[in-house]
């Protein structure tokens, strides 16, 4: 059957289509959130580990905001890219910003896109999700939630203020200095601006 000329020609036509797909995306979802990890060259086993860490990071946000009865009104999507080229292609098409930033929110489609920081495969296996990427997942999930409310719907700056507040409370609620370079970093920016005016 396969040796029939028609079958061979059909298979030949399909080959470039199959080759261009790349590694399959990994995903996880529930009624409120959908998370997609585009793993690029990362192995499936490490990809599954990273997906689980991303999921925990994203799910920490609605759980945290439930206490104040702030809810996810419509389902949100978070897409994370292990390969920078794949992220840049999406950013070029959909980012509302004029600059390339490594992450952005597409409010129209209620989706955040995040470029994961590059690491050796064994480093991913040892540490899981890079802390900066974890922070991005938490912060942009919070930002997307904020953008569903009247207070921030038409002002992404306020949505950013909201999202950084959530991030700081989730990552360092007691505001302890010197234990997390990324937390200190945010204050360093304010210090520098205060000094320069």
């Amino acid at each position, binding site marked *: 059957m396969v040796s029939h000329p028609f079958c061979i020609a059909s298979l030949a036509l399909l080959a470039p289509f199959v080759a261009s797909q790349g590694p399959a995306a990994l995903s996880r979802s529930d009624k409120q959130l959908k998370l997609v990890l585009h793993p690029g060259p990362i192995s499936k086993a490490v990809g599954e580990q990273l997906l689980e860490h991303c999921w925990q990071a994203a799910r920490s946000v609605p759980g945290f*905001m439930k206490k*104040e*009865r*702030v809810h996810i009104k419509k389902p949100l999507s978070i897409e994370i890219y292990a390969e920078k080229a794949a992220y840049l292609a999406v950013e070029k098409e959909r980012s509302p910003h004029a600059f390339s930033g490594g992450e952005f929110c597409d409010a129209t489609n209620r989706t955040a896109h995040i470029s994961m*920081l*590059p*690491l*050796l495969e*064994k*480093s991913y296996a*040892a*540490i*899981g999700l*890079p*802390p*900066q990427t*974890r*922070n991005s997942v938490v912060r942009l999930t919070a930002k997307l939630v*904020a953008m569903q*409310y*009247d*207070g*921030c719907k038409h*002002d992404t*700056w*306020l949505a950013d*203020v*909201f999202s*950084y*507040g*959530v991030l*700081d*409370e989730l990552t360092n609620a007691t*505001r302890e*200095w*010197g*234990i*997390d*370079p*990324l*937390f*200190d*970093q*945010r*204050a*360093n920016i*304010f*210090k520098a601006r*205060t000094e320069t005016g």
Partner: protein
Amino acid sequence: MLAEQKKRGWRKKLLKRPPKRKKNQGNGDVRKVVLSRVLGKDWAKTEAAFARMVKASETKWLARFQVTGRIGDRIVLAGTNKDPAEIKFTGELPAGDFTVSARVTLEEVSSRKAIRVLFTGSDSRIRGIIFHAGSIYISDWRNDKWHDVAKCKAAIETGKPFEFSIEMGSSIRVKVDGKQAIEHQADTTKYRTGLYFAINDSLGWLENIRIEAVAPANK
């Protein structure tokens, strides 16, 4: 940051419908009204409180290059060959002799397995104390490469935590797990402008980082 200082409920207040924009009101005006719900209406008081908070913040680290951050109770540094990971100490280095100490674990993620402690000087000089699996190097960074000035063997293994201390005094004295590993004569006063931890193509965990002045010896 300031929102966390105030009473709970800031999230709900920030998300409420903003007031209708008045004629001649810009984005900044509307934002002030929204933020006033959480921070209060006295903006002079808010700005003063913010300035005090920023001044009082005792930040210690600048994340210069990723990947770094906190995982559990440890700071991680993870770099590739192309992308280093680096943090800079932003506190004040002691005026006289001092010691830098920490507990480090190097992971086996590539053939490199090393972490650098860097001291910089005012004339762009950089001296590195580089802890490798099995050895320690004292090196200078010049013309885009490391030039070794001293080295020794050391009981450092991947996956096994070790305590190091580097005393910057009349010489550079390096200890591993309490035992002296190497001493190198140097004018350490030339390396007092900056302190960094850096990694390339490796992964390291840092705990209990201490920078302590060394009490002068009694005459």
